[in-house]
Structure formats: structure tokens, C-alpha cells
């Protein structure tokens, strides 16, 4: 009894580790980008659509010939790159949050059912996932948007409809693993119903994996949206999107590289931040790892 009591006393009470540098950096960037998107009308120095043909292809502020007030320069129609970047973030974040969450809900639900119930449920859901994954995702997305028509909603639907399989596979495997643990049997033996066991015993233990995936998926959604707007299948081409900016910047890369590079950097950082954020969260909340 004595040494058992002391084991308890020695057990660290601080369950949550201090947030890591990874979490700070990625969370920091996501906060900055998200608040820029949210408060775009107040933050953006110019109207993202306003053209000024006297001020085309102005370089960013540190180069010779920069125009004051246009921090990151202007594109070939004289539109402010920084403002377009900020408004582009709006689209990127809406797509990331809505499409990511939708894909997560569909995939995680089906994955949980398949992994927990097994048998026929698993076989049917598994086959659907196999068939789904046989389509090349980007082609599938382009096809879907072509059918649904362009627009923000179509992009979101396309991403959710295509990417739920990612969640389904991983969550299924995790749920199967948890299903085999004694505590699930213990819950059954204790007289709990199967649904309660699924929601209260299995789900909380699969949640870290879902969170990590959701974060990754948000990054992927940002990329897919950029790809779709790159090929002009996202929202109307006037509205600023990172993918659209990259497509436009590509045509004048030797004259005005900044039109291409800044949206690329924003895209890169955002996707990286999403994946690192998920990873950081997992390390912080996983009760077994800490």
C-alpha cells in the first residue's frame, strides 16, 4: 500500500505540456493569416480589384522604383499585391475550414462505424473507399467542379466529396485498434450499449488522430483550392485567390516575379502551418505520449 501511494504522489499532475515552439510558430502564422482574412477590409491598404494602369508592375518596397503605399508591389494591371493576398486569404480560410470540416465529418463517421462494427459494415464502407480512391483526386475535383459549375460552394463540395476517404481510412484503423483494447470489452461487459461505447469509449481515444488529420486536411484543402483557381475553376477570376494570383504571376515572371512569389510563399507557409499545428496539438493532448 505504501509504495502504491507514493507512486500516485510521484505521478505528474501537469498533464498538458507547455506548448512547443512548433505550436507557437504554426499557431502564430495561422492566427495572423486568419485575422488578416477576417478583417481584410480594414487591413488591406487598397481595393484588391482597383486597377491603376499608371502603376503596373511596381516592385516591392525594398527595391528601386517602388511606389510608396504598395508594400509588395503591383501586378500587370496595377493592382496591389498585398491587398489581393489578404483577400485571397479569405477564400483560402473559408475553404480550409468548411471543406476540411465537412470531409472530416463524413470520413470520420464512416470510419468509426467501419472500424467499430467490422463485418459487413466494414466491408461495404471499405469497398466504397477503394472505389473512391481509384479516381485521381485532382482530375476528380476538376470533373466535379465542371459538373457543379464554378463557385466557392462547388469547390468546397468537391473537396469534401473527394477527401473524406483520407479520414475514413485512418479513423477506421484507429477505431479497430481501440476496439481490440480491453476497456472496450470491459464497457460491453459492464452493460453499456454499443453506441455509448462507440461514442464515449472509442471516439475520445480516436480524437487525437482526427484532430491531426483535420489540420492536415485543411492544408490540403488550401492547396486544392489553389489548384482549382490556378486552372480558373474556382470562383470568378476577378476575385483574388492565391491560385489565381500564381497563374497570373506566372505569365510575367521575368518582369514581375513578386506577383508569383508572394502568393506562393503565403500558400506554402499556410499549408506548412496547418500540418505542423496538427502535429503539435497531437503531442500536446495525447495522454499516452505526455
Amino acid at each position, binding site marked *: *500500500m505504501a509504495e*502504491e*501511494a507514493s*507512486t*500516485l504522489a510521484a*505521478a*505528474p499532475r501537469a*498533464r498538458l505540456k507547455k506548448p512547443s515552439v512548433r505550436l507557437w510558430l504554426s499557431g502564430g502564422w495561422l492566427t495572423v493569416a486568419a485575422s488578416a482574412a477576417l478583417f481584410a477590409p480594414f487591413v488591406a491598404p487598397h481595393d484588391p480589384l482597383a486597377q491603376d494602369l499608371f502603376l503596373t508592375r511596381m516592385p516591392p518596397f525594398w527595391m528601386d522604383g517602388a511606389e510608396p503605399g504598395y508594400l509588395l508591389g503591383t501586378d500587370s494591371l496595377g493592382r496591389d499585391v498585398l491587398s489581393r493576398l489578404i483577400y485571397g486569404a479569405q477564400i483560402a480560410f473559408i475553404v480550409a475550414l468548411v471543406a476540411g470540416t465537412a470531409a472530416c465529418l463524413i470520413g470520420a463517421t464512416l470510419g468509426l462505424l467501419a472500424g467499430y462494427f*467490422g*463485418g459487413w459494415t466494414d466491408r461495404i464502407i471499405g469497398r466504397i473507399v477503394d472505389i473512391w480512391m481509384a479516381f485521381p483526386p485532382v482530375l476528380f475535383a476538376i470533373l466535379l467542379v465542371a459538373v457543379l459549375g464554378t463557385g466557392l460552394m462547388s469547390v468546397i463540395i468537391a473537396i469534401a466529396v473527394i477527401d473524406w476517404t483520407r479520414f475514413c481510412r485512418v479513423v477506421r484503423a484507429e477505431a479497430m485498434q481501440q476496439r481490440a*483494447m*480491453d*476497456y472496450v*470489452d*470491459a*464497457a*460491453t*461487459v*459492464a*452493460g*453499456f450499449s454499443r453506441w*455509448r461505447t462507440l461514442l*464515449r*469509449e472509442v471516439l*475520445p*481515444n480516436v*480524437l487525437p488522430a482526427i484532430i491531426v488529420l483535420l489540420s492536415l486536411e485543411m492544408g490540403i484543402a488550401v492547396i486544392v483550392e489553389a489548384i482549382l483557381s490556378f486552372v480558373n475553376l474556382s470562383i470568378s477570376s476577378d476575385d483574388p485567390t492565391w491560385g489565381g494570383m500564381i497563374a497570373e504571376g506566372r505569365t510575367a515572371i521575368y518582369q514581375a516575379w513578386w506577383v508569383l512569389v508572394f502568393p506562393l510563399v503565403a500558400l506554402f507557409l499556410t499549408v506548412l502551418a496547418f500540418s505542423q499545428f496538427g502535429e503539435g496539438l497531437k503531442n500536446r493532448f495525447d*495522454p*499516452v505520449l505526455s
Partner: protein
Amino acid sequence: MTATLSLSSLSVALSGDPRRRLLRSVDLEVARGEVHGLVGESGAGKSMIGRTVFGILPRAVGILGGTVAFEGKDLLSRTELRHLRGREMALIPQDPLTALNPSRRIGAQLTDRLVKVLGTPRKTADARALTLLDEVQIRDPDRVMKSFPHELSGGMRQRVLIAEAFAAEPKLIVADEPTTALDVTVQKRILGLIKAMQERHGAALLFVTHDMGVVAKITQAMTVLYGGLVVEHGRTEDILAGPKSAYTKALLEATPRYDRPDDALRPVSPVTIAAIAEDVAAADRAFLDHAR
């Protein structure tokens, strides 16, 4: 008086194939309030019996025939089983390290079962959980209630699981090698605790183990299994005093004795194994013939 638990000619088999039986027409009776030892080597089918009773057999294992009854009620019927699980019968699992949900606090897991399964009001359930933890000699029940499983030692977790098993005042408790995953010093205390709880609450206890010493210490009746076949059963003192089966005798002699430290270990001899394996094969032939 009907027995608390009775199995009769229970056979379970891999993928329901009569040639691959894991339990070979097992008969077993646990009387009311009795401590019954279920002994056998690993792979003898001890845990399979527990799993069949609670309806948690692995997917690949099917029930071929026989009956399982709790006070005369058919446990192979799902509706009957659902009603009895957690109320009238409880399980003390083998491995305390995996039998608690790692992401939920002990208190929540303990009171949940009182509230959700038994319908105890939340306030009463908290008090009851504290009493139970106190009964299993956990010193700081308030603190343990707020802890996550990984913050407790193996012995502590097994105490929590014992408390959980007795929560509903069940009439039958199946303890599936409850001390195997613990180290030797803790084992003895947990064993004493289970016995004490059993006596206080008056439940029948089916104690699954491979340890003859434990059987001798706490059980009144025992059943010896080999390869899913009942080798011998009866009152513990009778069997220990004069085992009828050569296999039981060999098992008893194989138990290491602290009072004879210089003795070499005496494993069950190949001759005995061959004899018992022949019994198993004969039982299988009879079963298959009968099935035809």
C-alpha cells in the same frame, strides 16, 4: 437450488468448425457464493469460458452447442445477456493496464457505470464510488477519482477495476487471471482483496488462474482444463488431497515449492501430455461421430 452459473456441454470453435474446437463439451457449475477455481495451462480455454459467459468472444470464434445459464436464465440469448451484464454479473479483467479507458478520469468511468447502467442518481453515485474505492483500500479516493489511468500504478488500477466489478453488487464475478499482469508482491495483496470483497459482498466467484497455489488458498471447488477439455472437477480439498487424473497430479507436482528450494522444477512429463492429448482426440472423435 439452481447454480449461479452453469455451463453444460458447451463447445465453441474457430469459425464454427467442429474440427477446430476450443472448448470441448465443457460442463461447469458455480454454486451460489462459492469460489470456484478454473485451472489450466495457457491455451487451455480458461479465458474462452469467461468470454463466452459475457458474450465477448472474438469474431472468429463461434458457439457450436451447449448451454450457458445464469440462475437458470439463458446467457446465449442476447436480450437476457444484455440485461444481466453489469448488473448481475461482472468481470475483473486480466490486464489492468488496458482495461481502463486512457482518456477518461477514473471517477467518470466509475460513476458512469452506476449512473448509466444502474440508474443511480449522480450525487449518490459519486458517494458510492468513493465508498467502493475506500473498500478496495485506496488511500486517497478523492484524488484517484480525478486521476487518469496512466497516473496510477498497475496495482492501483486493478483495485479500481475490482471496485468497479463490485459496484452493482453482482451475484457472479468472473476474475480472469486478475493478478497475472502484476508483480509478485502486489499479486498477494490483490488476491487477498478480491477474497475479502467476495466474502463481504457474498458473490459467487469464478477465479481463472494457472496458479495451483492460488487455487489451494482461496477456492472451495475447482475445474481443471486441458485443451478445452475438462480433465477433472470437484471440491478443491479432495482434488488436492488425491487427484484422480494423472494430468492434475502432474500439474500439482509442477508447482514450485518454496519449502523445497533445492528441488528441480518438475514439468508435466511428455508421457502425461501424450495421454491427455489422446483423451482430447477421443473426445473429438466422439463429438464428430455424434454430430454425424
